[in-house]
């Protein structure tokens, strides 16, 4: 790919890039940052801010204890990538007996409560960042799937593969029951081919636009025919898989010859996915997307090509993460505070920084609901909004909602302390003065939470 082609593919693939024009520029960094004078000289960030940058990019939220404990950015990176602590076992949620029971099952509290707690407290920081990244990448919404238990099962599948192999994750998600409902895979059969999954698999999950045409969409759709989900109580005949598992049913499959990306054969789902995984654009596109997630800037063409080529060899996610983090750009001034902090990151950071009441989870999710940024409810298959789109007035003012999670008896923090608890260490005089001007603890914290500094990450 030429750099121009590559840029065009990123543009088309990734909504966040389009909605984030600021990313296209060489980041102007800290122009005018530490004073309010526009002509101020560009400043460099402090070591503590740099450590906080590492903590919040490689995990969710700027855990103040981790920022305080790290001796250096390198130390913070090592902590964030440390996976030696075993994961906390997920709650045991019983499978619903039948379809009607599944539609009625209300497990959002244990599911989202568990997830939020892991984001806020898990020592496996990078795993939580990746679980979120994959949810955003393979964005599946409960709004269409309707069955909370299947969203929970998909979440567990993401956890199983988040730090493993992208190839395994792609194969698992393609036959995941929630995905089969979300992109109509269960409707996709020999005599009634449904293109929904086939198109998005190529456009959003693997290669990205510019590498396939309409005949490839149809070929992928035909290859993926024949998958169903065993919904208990829905069928007369027992299926040879456990309830709520997916199953390949040969008589619904189109076993004919297809030509996909120039490869002709009697492809099934795995064959089609292998062809996509073999295409260099898949590795390069996914690697570049993870680079943007962690670094906040696009990789230059040479870096993108290098990361893609390496990723394509074995699709090991942690190897890719390590290579991205090793890029000097990751710790550079240009990368710091170059992303708009998401509502989820704002909320998790608040929970990590301040004492909360026992109903905090409910308050957090009410705040996320207000701005339609609830895990398991992405607005569409392209995932959650990002970039300056998150600076819309509605999203900005509803950041105040998260204050509902705080205990009312917080001690009044100094202005700098209010920021530091949120992982913000380099603060403009103006912003410090605004927070210092409030006299109650909740008002100070609310203002730090909605400051320009905390609005970026």
């Amino acid at each position, binding site marked *: 790919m030429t750099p121009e082609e590559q840029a065009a593919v990123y543009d088309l693939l990734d909504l966040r890039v389009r*909605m984030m024009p600021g990313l296209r520029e060489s980041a102007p960094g800290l122009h005018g940052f530490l004073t309010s004078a526009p002509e101020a000289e560009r400043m460099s960030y402090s070591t503590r801010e740099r450590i906080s940058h590492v903590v919040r990019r490689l995990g969710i939220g700027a855990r103040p204890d981790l920022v305080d404990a790290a001796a250096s950015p390198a130390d913070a990176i090592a902590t964030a990538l440390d996976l030696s602590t075993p994961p906390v076992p997920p709650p045991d949620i019983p499978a619903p007996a039948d379809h009607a029971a599944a539609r009625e099952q209300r497990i959002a509290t244990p599911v989202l409560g568990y997830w939020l707690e892991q984001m806020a407290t898990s020592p496996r920081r990078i795993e939580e960042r990746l679980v979120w990244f994959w949810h955003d990448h393979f964005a599946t919404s409960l709004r269409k799937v309707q069955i909370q238990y299947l969203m929970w099962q998909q979440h567990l599948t993401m956890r199983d593969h988040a730090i493993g192999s992208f190839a395994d994750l792609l194969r698992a998600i393609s036959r995941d029951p929630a995905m089969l409902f979300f992109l109509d895979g269960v409707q996709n059969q020999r005599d009634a*081919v449904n*293109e929904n999954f086939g*198109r998005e698999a190529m456009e959003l999950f693997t290669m990205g636009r510019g590498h396939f045409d309409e005949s490839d969409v149809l070929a992928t759709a035909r290859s993926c025919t024949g998958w169903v989900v065993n919904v208990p109580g829905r069928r007369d005949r027992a299926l040879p898989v456990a309830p709520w598992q997916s199953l390949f049913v040969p008589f619904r499959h189109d076993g004919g010859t297809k030509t996909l990306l120039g490869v002709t054969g009697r492809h099934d789902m795995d064959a089609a996915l292998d062809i996509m995984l073999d295409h260099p654009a898949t590795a390069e596109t996914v690697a570049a997307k993870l680079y943007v997630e962690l670094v906040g800037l696009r990789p230059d063409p040479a870096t993108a090509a290098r990361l893609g080529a390496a990723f394509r060899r074995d699709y090991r996610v942690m190897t890719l993460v390590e290579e991205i983090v090793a890029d000097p750009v990751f710790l550079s001034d240009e990368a710091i505070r170059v992303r708009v902090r998401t509502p989820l990151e704002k909320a998790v950071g608040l929970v990590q920084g301040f004492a909360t009441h026992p109903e905090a989870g409910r308050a957090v999710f009410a705040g996320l609901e207000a701005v339609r940024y609830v895990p398991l409810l992405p607005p569409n298959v392209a995932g959650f909004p990002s970039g*300056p789109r998150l600076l819309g007035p509605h999203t900005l003012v509803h950041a105040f909602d998260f204050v509902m999670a705080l205990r009312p008896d917080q001690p009044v923090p100094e202005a700098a302390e209010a920021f530091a608890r949120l992982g913000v260490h380099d603060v403009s005089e103006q912003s410090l003065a605004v927070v210092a001007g409030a006299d109650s603890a909740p008002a100070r914290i609310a203002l730090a939470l909605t400051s320009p500094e905390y609005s970026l990450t």
Partner: protein
Amino acid sequence: MTDHSLSALPEGADCGLVTRRHFVAGLGATVAVVLAGVHGISIWGRNPHLALAAPPPGSFGPGAPGRTLVVVEMGGGNDGLNMVVPHAAGAYRDLRGELAVADPIDLDGEIGLHPALESLAARYPRHEVAIVEGVGYPDPDLSHFASMSTWWTGTPGAVGATGWLGRYLDGTVGATDPLAAITIGPGPSAAMVGDASFVVSIQDATGLAPRIPPWIDDMDELLGAWAGFAAAPVDSPALFGQVQRAIAATAAARERLGTALAGPAAAPLTDAPAGDARMDRRRRRPGTLAGSLDVAARLVTSGLAPRIVYVHGFGDFDTHQGQVGRHEALMADLDEAVDGFFTSVEAAGRAKDVVVMTTSEFGRRARSNGSGTDHGTASTHLLIGATVRGGRHGAPPDLGALQDGNLVHTVDYRSLYATVLTGWLGAAAADVLGADHETLPLFATRDRLPIGPR
């Protein structure tokens, strides 16, 4: 450049005491600086792909003050063939099979409306509904995201560019009025993102009011303090400056917006006709078009007179499966929404000041996939209002001459835009779209189109 934002804010209190009124007045001055002084630096970031600098406010003329365009974006790709049904074409039933609309409300012996569009069908003979058939663009792209981008930017294949309505706003009101452009839905629409203008986005009638705990006793004071983060903004396209400008504009818009949404102008919900509980419920429920257009009606009738209200993020028109029931529900929502909206604006005597226009990234595939329809190309769009020239426009695509199974467009979507820009918004289409496009006779003249059997 007129400073609407300043003049609309309350006067400051006596000097000395820093009261909230004093602060708000000061904020007005700040906003004037923030929004006007950094012309060309959008809160959305300056766009390097844009070949030309942002047009200075007023360079496109004043536009059409007092008029509002309401855009209804049917995201996911609305099935135009089942909204305005070509029931006389034998190919329609062959292609659609069980998905074919069995009992459309006939308009002229050739086409009919989906049966859920009852009130639109009642408005059609009153010349209030323009049906534009065959709207699409050359070399259609069947990706949601590429096609949305085409519709948003007004340039097929363009990505990363400003939105067509954003450019209109840049060249008319610029940054002078933070309430000229309002999105109802999840975040500002990309169609409205310009290089200098500002888009207020709200979800529902609560406007821009956060939910804060009772132990923070003065929300206005808190939000007043919040605006202080932008008191001395960084004059830079960097994100930090963008956040400050967004805070300033939000703070400036908030109170006026709250007043407008609370105002008595819109028909109160309790005025819904007796027995119409279903509609009342829909209008109250955020996330439906009926709920969103109810908010739009309040804005239009409030005295704010926004230039553009853009409604998106309701429903899911991407009907790959389960289409019959899902599309019926969507059409019912559309019908109730439009009816409720016009009932409100008519009651307020504002019917001649507003036009509703639909958009959608594409129509659906002509042939059914068994339970739904996959992505398609050209589709039918509606323009509704007392000033439109009701009847049929464009030309229906030939169901017997599909291209790769898809309808071939007969009207370029930029013609629709050009018509609305010149005929309603008071701008030259070439200024906004970069070139002239054929316009359609969509706005009322004395010669009405024949309505009824042909």
